[in-house]
């Protein structure tokens, strides 16, 4: 993966391609938002990362992330790409033209994180109703008290109060 | 003694002395009423039988709580359906919606008029009996189409249109295969067809010649298709069309469709028995002096054969998946109709060369010569 990182840096000198090494688990490469599409299409066509395993949204302290897990069938290698998007304007190019199946995963990330995928043909909410307010998987999301006259409070008559409330 | 209605008519004339036409009308009406209620009971019984057979085939028990072995389950179901609310969709065409189930029931039940249960027990032995039976059961399609259109539901409409295409097309192979029988007997009367056969299997039209042998299967298949039973239940197609033409029906109206379907199972089974399996014919040694006992044996024989076929219908229902619409049409137009024509030709040549003798009779004749 580190060699891939250097190769990417050579190929795309303008893009900020950083390699993140973590304490545990997989390592990943952070890519510049503007170059994401060209880098992924380069990976798919030239480096034979033909399989998109997963596309997900995520959030770290300051940024929203769109995470791409790619896999190469020929070399049996995985690579994780991330783009960091500012919270107030999270926009990134869609990769649905490379893997049409990604359109649905992008819709999910849009629904739950509010990441806007440019050139997506049908960017609508997928899990939640069309008129839902907010993007629930964001860290600063507050559960609504009610949705269309349906109360969000639990209706258990013998409800046990939350443990945290008791203390 | 010609038939039971005429007997009643004579009885009325002798004892009450009223106008002949009126007496004829009254006696036919009374007898028809008895037969119709009998068919209603049979239809109810079949719903119970179907559930039991299905249960056993599927390693279940089936309904067994109401009455001995659950035989009164049909009463419980009937009472439940009668008591249920009769929903009519707000945007439905109400007169048509109300009328459709009755049309279905009338179509099926009218066919019973020509079904002979024994040499005497038949409402009317029409000289166009075969034609009448085939034609009147097609009235069901009117009811289904009417109900599906009037429901104002897309699933219903799809079901109704499928049904119309299906029933109308399958009339042709059914009629063609029965035509071979008519060719042998030279009569359209049900009683004549039965009298042309005998009590023993080698006298049945089923074994008459290879043409009739195949014709039976074609008749049975197309009769199943006309009745919208699996594997031809595409108008109802639970997993595709929710419930097809009766999606919007509930309560008594739904049960009328239901009853029509099960009564039709009885009708097609009895038609198969009449055309191909000797109807009520019993061996000579069982015919006694007493008319009543002879008739009872005949009825028992007829009903036994019929219930064998009913069981086969139920058995098929719980074995096979259903066909697709276009496959159904392919099967009808490309397979059944050509084959039934061939059967007709084979039968015709038999009639021409062997003078209507059956295959086995010809064979035995050759041996004894």
């Amino acid at each position: 993966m580190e060699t891939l990182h250097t190769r990417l840096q050579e190929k795309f000198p303008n893009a900020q391609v950083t390699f993140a090494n973590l304490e545990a688990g997989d390592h990943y490469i952070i890519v510049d938002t503007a170059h994401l599409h060209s880098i992924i299409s380069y990976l798919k066509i030239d480096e034979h990362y033909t399989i998109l395993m997963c596309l997900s949204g995520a959030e770290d302290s300051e940024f929203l992330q769109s995470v791409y897990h790619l896999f190469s069938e020929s070399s049996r290698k995985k690579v994780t790409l991330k783009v960091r998007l500012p919270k107030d304007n999270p926009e990134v190019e869609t990769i649905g033209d490379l893997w049409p199946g990604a359109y649905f995963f992008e819709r999910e990330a849009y629904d739950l994180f509010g990441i806007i995928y440019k050139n997506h043909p049908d960017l609508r909410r997928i899990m939640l109703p069309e008129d839902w307010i907010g993007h629930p998987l964001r860290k600063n999301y507050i559960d609504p008290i009610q949705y269309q006259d349906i109360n969000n409070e639990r209706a258990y008559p013998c409800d046990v109060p939350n443990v945290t409330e008791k203390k | 003694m010609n038939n039971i209605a005429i007997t009643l008519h004579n009885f009325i004339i002798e004892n009450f002395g009223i106008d002949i036409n009126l007496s004829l009308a009254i006696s036919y009406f009374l007898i028809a009423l008895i037969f119709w209620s009998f068919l209603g009971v049979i239809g109810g019984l079949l719903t119970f039988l179907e559930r039991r057979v299905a249960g056993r085939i599927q390693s279940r028990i089936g309904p067994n709580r109401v009455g001995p072995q659950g035989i009164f389950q049909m009463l419980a179901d009937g009472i439940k359906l009668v008591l249920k609310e009769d929903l009519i969709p707000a945007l439905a065409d109400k007169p048509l919606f109300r009328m459709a189930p009755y049309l279905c029931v009338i179509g099926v039940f009218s066919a019973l008029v020509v079904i002979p249960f024994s040499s005497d027990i038949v409402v009317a032995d029409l000289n166009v009996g075969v034609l009448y039976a085939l034609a009147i059961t097609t009235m069901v399609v009117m009811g289904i189409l009417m109900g599906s259109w009037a429901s104002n539901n897309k699933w219903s409409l799809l079901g109704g249109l499928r049904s119309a295409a299906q029933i109308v097309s399958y009339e042709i192979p059914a009629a063609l295969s029965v035509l071979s029988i008519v060719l042998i007997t030279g009569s359209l009367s049900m009683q004549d067809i039965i009298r042309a056969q005998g009590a023993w299997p080698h006298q049945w039209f089923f074994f008459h010649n290879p043409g009739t042998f195949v014709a039976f299967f074609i008749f049975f298949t197309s009769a199943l298709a006309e009745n919208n039973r699996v594997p031809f239940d595409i108008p109802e197609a639970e997993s595709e069309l929710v419930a097809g033409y009766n999606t919007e029906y509930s309560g008594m109206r739904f049960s009328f469709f239901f009853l029509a379907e099960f009564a039709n199972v009885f009708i097609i089974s009895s038609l198969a028995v009449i055309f191909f399996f000797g109807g009520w014919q019993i061996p000579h040694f069982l015919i006694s002096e007493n008319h009543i006992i002879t008739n009872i044996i005949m009825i028992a024989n007829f009903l036994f054969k019929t219930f064998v076929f009913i069981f086969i219908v139920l058995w098929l229902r719980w074995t096979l998946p259903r066909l697709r619409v276009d496959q159904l049409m392919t099967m009808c137009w490309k397979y059944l109709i050509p084959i039934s024509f061939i059967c007709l030709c084979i039968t015709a040549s038999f009639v021409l060369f062997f003078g209507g003798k059956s295959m086995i009779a010809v064979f035995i004749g050759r041996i004894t010569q």
Partner: protein
Amino acid sequence: MYELEKNNDNTMTLNMGPHHPSTHGVLRFILEMDGEIILSVKPDVGYLHRSIEKIGERVTYPAFMPYTDRVDYVAAANCNVGYALAVEKLMGIETPERAQYLRVIVSELNRIISHLLMTGVLAMDLGAYTPFLHAVREREKINDIFEILCGARLTYNLATIGGMPFDIKETTIRKCLEILEGLKKFLKEFDDLVTNNAIFISRLANIGVIDKETAKAFMLSGPNLRAAGAHWDLRKNETYFLYDRFKFDIAVGSGKAGTLGDSYDRFSVRMKEIETSISILEQAFKSLPSGEVQAKLPKTLKPPKGEVYVRTESARGELGYYIISDGTAKASRIKIRTGSFAAISILDKIGRGLMLSDLVAFMASLDLIAPEIDR
């Protein structure tokens, strides 16, 4: 391609679902129809969204285990062990050998259960109700095994991080082998009843053909991908647990009824996989090592900062857990990538031009499970 054609007078919009009998749970499709022919399929999912991923951020790592049952209730054990594997990989925990064997056993048993249900439901969607109940009858027997193992029949919650909470007894193994023998007999019967039935074949052959490239582009995985002719099985190609110790062949679509990658191939791949699972189970029971089933763990699980994407072969394809840890006892993000969610997006592409009855068969052959799509 996601735009509906302009609604002119000749087409009919049909609302299939959310409570249509063949959408298994609550899925909804907005169909644009020309008579019986489908012009476009617009899937509308989310009716079973239970925000499992959000719950994952609010409960601790071990407490999330029962929620993974609910991701895919038909193959709950596969989801359990997949999640356990992901957390173990994140924390660097070594699982005892016997526990790994037990995980292979439960996931293969669960795969059999799931495929039995799928094949039965496929037959039911084609109008034959009896094969479904026969399949469920056999399924119940394996459910009994699960009941003996972990105490539950559907939502097993049978894995802990670092091992398994139960051990398998000799009597259970014997009972299990007995059931597998019965299952082999049942499969022969099922072949006569369903697999070789002329109507069944004609309903499935050449319907909904997905070729290999399309399948990869639409991120299909598991049996659906293998039916398209791809030799790809995570159990073999990306060995996890101890699958490398077992001998088995990857079931691949053959196109024997029609075209490669049609609905019949997807069905027969699953039938073959039941046989594969039976043989894996027999090998596993023969070579089951003795020893501990639970690794020693700290009292509170606090994985180090990092992230991991672990995928396992569930009954419905690739089941991936993407976990981001921020060093606390609760995950910062748990994303579950399921096979059905990827499969739902192909419906529009392949569904165009099919008949309504074919769509039902095609959908059932993809083995969509609504809770797995919505999570």
